[in-house]
């Protein structure tokens, strides 16, 4: 029997809160598997809302020793100390019977295998180290960018404009935090779909009804939130700006907006 809209929403709301009994849980998952786009959107919106519930909790922090204890627990055990007694190999040889040629030959084969294995391990380790070095470089890059964010946030005077998603993408939202003194700003975005390879998003400052480009950017992966730094937001007087808008445009941007508008925020 087909599920009506109300029943779908009822089950969906409880599903995202993990409050369904087993039978209803199965029933909803089956319905979701066959849901049309409108119902999937209902599910996505409710799931996103449920993911925000942790933020309704009052903010607390544990005592500092909690972190210490965690890090102490995950610290690898100290390397076993090397024995000063050189006779350990002798004792090992005796223990495993290396005194006999046949056993010694077998041991030699095993040793070859171990050496090959260790060589392979060394290559893997080198690759892992390179990978980690790359991650470290990325993190250092992020640090520089974060400092840029702080630069704006710590400015003596900042302006903020909220941007809301339009019909083409109603769940999107954005915000411009802007230091008029230095002409730099941070554009914070959330829930914008990734741009196709041949497209970019373009930010517009709308002044006296005329859109002026403030830069282009791409969103390459689906993320909840992204930040972009606007290095050259020349307009310093918020009173002169009507609105900010974001449209999707051909890669590299265009002189005047041509594509769908994703976000719009009025300055006043």
């Amino acid at each position, binding site marked *: 029997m087909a599920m009506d809209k109300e029943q779908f929403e*009822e089950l969906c709301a409880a599903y995202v809160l993990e409050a369904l*009994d087993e039978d209803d849980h199965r029933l909803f998952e089956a319905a979701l598997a066959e849901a049309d786009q409108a119902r999937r959107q209902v599910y996505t919106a409710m799931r996103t809302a449920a993911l925000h519930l*942790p*933020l*309704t909790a009052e903010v607390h922090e544990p005592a500092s020793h*909690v972190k210490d204890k965690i890090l102490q627990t995950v610290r690898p055990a100290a390397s076993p100390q090397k024995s000063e007694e050189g006779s350990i190999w002798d004792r090992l040889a005796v223990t495993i019977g290396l005194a006999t040629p046949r056993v010694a030959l077998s041991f030699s084969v095993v040793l070859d295998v171990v050496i090959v294995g260790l060589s392979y391990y060394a290559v893997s380790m080198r690759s892992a180290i390179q990978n980690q070095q790359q991650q470290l470089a990325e993190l250092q890059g992020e640090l520089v960018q974060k400092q840029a964010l702080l630069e704006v*946030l710590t400015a003596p005077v900042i302006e903020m404009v909220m941007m809301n998603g339009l019909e083409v993408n109603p769940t999107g939202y954005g915000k411009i935090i802007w230091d008029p003194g230095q002409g730099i700003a941070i554009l*914070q975005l959330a829930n914008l779909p990734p741009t196709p390879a041949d497209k970019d998003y373009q930010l517009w400052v709308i002044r006296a009804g005329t859109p002026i480009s403030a830069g282009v950017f791409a969103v390459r992966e689906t993320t909840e939130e992204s*930040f972009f730094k606007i290095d050259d937001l020349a307009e310093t007087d918020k009173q002169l700006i009507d609105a900010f808008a974001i449209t999707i445009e051909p890669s*590299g941007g265009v002189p005047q907006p041509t594509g769908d508008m994703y976000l719009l925020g009025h300055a006043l």
Partner: protein
Amino acid sequence: MVVLAVLKRLDTSIEKALIARISDGDQQALAVLYDQYVALLYSVVIAIIKKREEAEDLMQEIFLLIWKKASTFDTSRDNVYAWLTTMARNRAIDRTRSKAFRTAQQEVAEPIPEITASAMENPLDAVIMQERADQVQEAMQQIPAAPREVILLAYFEGCSQSQMAEQLNLPLGTIKTRVRQGMKKFSELLGGVR
């Protein structure tokens, strides 16, 4: 044409890289993830458990679980925020269901001092988190009290709809309606589909 410099979101590529490093046994990465998430996860845990000592003990358990389970995290599909908050909530609810915890609950819960976001280590994270939390809390306050109550009961106490009906002494149908109305309103207020 000005090309905007990308400032990647703290919780996407960086966090995924952190999880990858944690799965490789990097303690420093765990420390960074801890600093970034401790306030959020602990706030969820304490809201459910309500006892500081028990909550701190559980935080250790959760971060050790992250340490052990990081290799199972699918960086191409999973969301770090959702993975961590779900893990913290589920572990806290499991803890409240344990016999030992229920016995200890007989004792009076300690008052827990609230902290402000400004006390957190990273001022940027604090600003962003506080700002978003303010928006979410404001949206929650706009939901009528009855639907709000069932949403919070479901999330922070892990109650099923049948359990809520029993606990609130209301028909199951009423609970279902309230859950639906509440979540619909909440998602609309947060910018979801109408």
